[in-house]
């Protein structure tokens, strides 16, 4: 192959003098779309390891549901949800910071369990509306044939989608908890001492967040992987998380026991997370954990099964 050819157009439309304001070199007689190869060259640089490609996919997968690099309209709803998720934590941190007379720790105003509980509605709304777009847009626009042909393997795509959904939900669940934690350090009389005393909370906060995030991500992606239409994915997910609690409570009343509550797909993970962050045993014990694990495994299995066996159109 010869190197890039520098080609200079000599096609100046005859009789153009002055050209006037805005008169470009493209006169009426100039051919359309003449190509002048001055910059194209073969890329010869080294490629990054594949994890860099997955990271790029995750970054794109996080940006899209949040409406980043999209129109202003597509940002409204996700940022409303983000605001709703962060507002309680920000408020209890801001008040002691801004009003010196208030001598109260943010964690005394709202604890991590309450934060998780109040955020659970936001999480449901976010999983219902934002998480499906990680998958549905690619299916709707038929991008997958492009991805799988020359860019990604199916396994990389599934991994990227799962990490995108988990990252998005951590933003909603873990983010506010971290704001509360950092805010508490800032408002403490003895920040160093407070941090040393409470640093043990961090792993529990992270673990509790994952307890909420993983089943929701798995469920959201599983429902979204079954349809290319977001509205169907939203409806399917809402059906599961709205009907599930009602059913489990109904059964609990009928059998006059608490164990059916462990099967609540919406409230179950939150109860478990509250138990984790409190260091207390889960209300429905081992059964709740089994249901939780089953939810994560089943959701992941649907996702992997759906993308592992084709379905690239």
């Amino acid at each position, binding site marked *: 192959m010869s190197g890039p050819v520098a080609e200079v157009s000599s096609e100046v439309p005859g009789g153009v003098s002055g050209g006037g304001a805005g008169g470009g070199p493209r006169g009426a007689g100039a051919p359309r779309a003449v190509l002048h190869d001055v910059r194209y060259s073969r*890329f010869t640089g080294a490629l*990054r390891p*594949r994890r860099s490609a997955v990271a790029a*996919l995750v970054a*794109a997968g996080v940006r899209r549901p949040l409406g980043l690099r999209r129109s202003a309209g597509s940002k409204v709803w996700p940022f409303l949800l983000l605001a709703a998720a962060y507002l309680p934590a920000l408020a209890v941190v801001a008040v002691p910071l801004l009003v010196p007379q208030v001598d109260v720790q943010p964690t005394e105003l709202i604890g991590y369990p309450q934060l998780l509980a109040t955020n659970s509605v936001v999480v449901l709304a976010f999983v219902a509306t934002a998480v499906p777009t990680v998958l549905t847009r690619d299916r709707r626009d038929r991008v997958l044939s*492009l991805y799988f042909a020359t860019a990604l*393997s199916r396994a990389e795509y599934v991994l990227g989608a799962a990490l995108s959904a988990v990252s998005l939900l951590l933003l909603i669940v873990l983010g506010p908890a971290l704001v509360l934690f950092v805010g508490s350090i800032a408002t403490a009389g003895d920040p160093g001492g407070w941090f040393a005393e409470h640093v043990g909370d961090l792993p529990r906060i992270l673990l509790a967040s994952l307890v909420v995030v993983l089943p929701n991500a798995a469920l959201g992606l599983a429902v979204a992987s079954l349809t290319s239409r977001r509205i169907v994915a939203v409806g399917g997910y809402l059906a599961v998380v709205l009907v599930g609690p009602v059913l489990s409570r109904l059964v609990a009343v009928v059998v006059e026991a608490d164990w059916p509550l462990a099967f609540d797909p919406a409230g179950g993970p939150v109860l478990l997370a509250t138990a984790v962050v409190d260091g207390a045993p889960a209300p429905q014990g081992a059964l709740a954990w089994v249901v939780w694990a089953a939810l994560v495994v089943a959701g992941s299995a649907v996702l992997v099964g759906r993308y592992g066996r084709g379905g690239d159109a």
Partner: protein
Amino acid sequence: MTTTDPPAIECTGLSRTFGEVRALDGLTVAFTAPATGLLGANGAGKSTFMRVALGLVRPDSGTLRVLGMDAARERDEVRRRVGFMPEHPCLPLDMSAQEVCVHLARLRGLGHRDAVRRASEVLFAVGLEEERRRPVGTYSLGMQQRTKLAQALVHGPELVLLDEPTSGLDPAGREEMLQLVRRLSRDLGVRVVTSSHVLDDVERTCDEVVVLRAGALAAQRPVAVGHDPGGAVHVRVGGDPAEFAAALAPRLAPLGVRVAPTPAGDVGISAGTDAALDVVRDLAAEQGRALVRLVADGRGLEDVVLDAMEGRGERTGG
């Protein structure tokens, strides 16, 4: 490109069935030209062939090598060195052409800075410089096709597979796309395999045409550049052709040109050189005959391809 390069695509005994349909039926072929056009009616197996080459579909039997690599086993390396432009719409409509190209480049393993630089380069090369920041959803079909071509080139592949690149384009868009495709192999040193069901597209963009019919090779021929100016011609004149031929033969003999009747009843002339054609003209003028028809003999690419597509012709080795 040197002669020692492995064929762009080489397959042996390739078969694949989808249910009752035999999409590929023992196809054996090697694409050695810089640009090869894959021609066939709808359902001839062109798309399936490309999907096997990309490792998207596993063949039931047979092997396929892309740039010397096994398409099924060395998928990562094939992905690295091959670009693909699908036929159907496949672009994320809410992203701009620039974002699409950067994104695909990143997914293929380029670093962010390289990806941005390469995206600008290929978008410039396909003539999408000014509109590259608008969402793809607002593009015309021609611009979307060019975006698809740009993303296929963004990682600097050695080979690009183009599935019906002119599909659905208006005449102006088609013209631009054909020029781009021709440039890929001729100026940019990228090997091209393009599928089409229009011979004209292949003739204008490729060096070789491969005709598929019912999943098997029907013909493989180089695309002749120009026509042979000294080739045999057929002449049809007013009046009795035998009489004209008898008068013509002695005049053409000194030029080493023979005269013989054709099956269609015309006068066949063995070499249509300028001197010979001058003699034909002068004789017709002398005898006051009308020159009704003067055509080059020999079956053109079009005849061969049409016969192959319809199953009449014989396989012509390339």
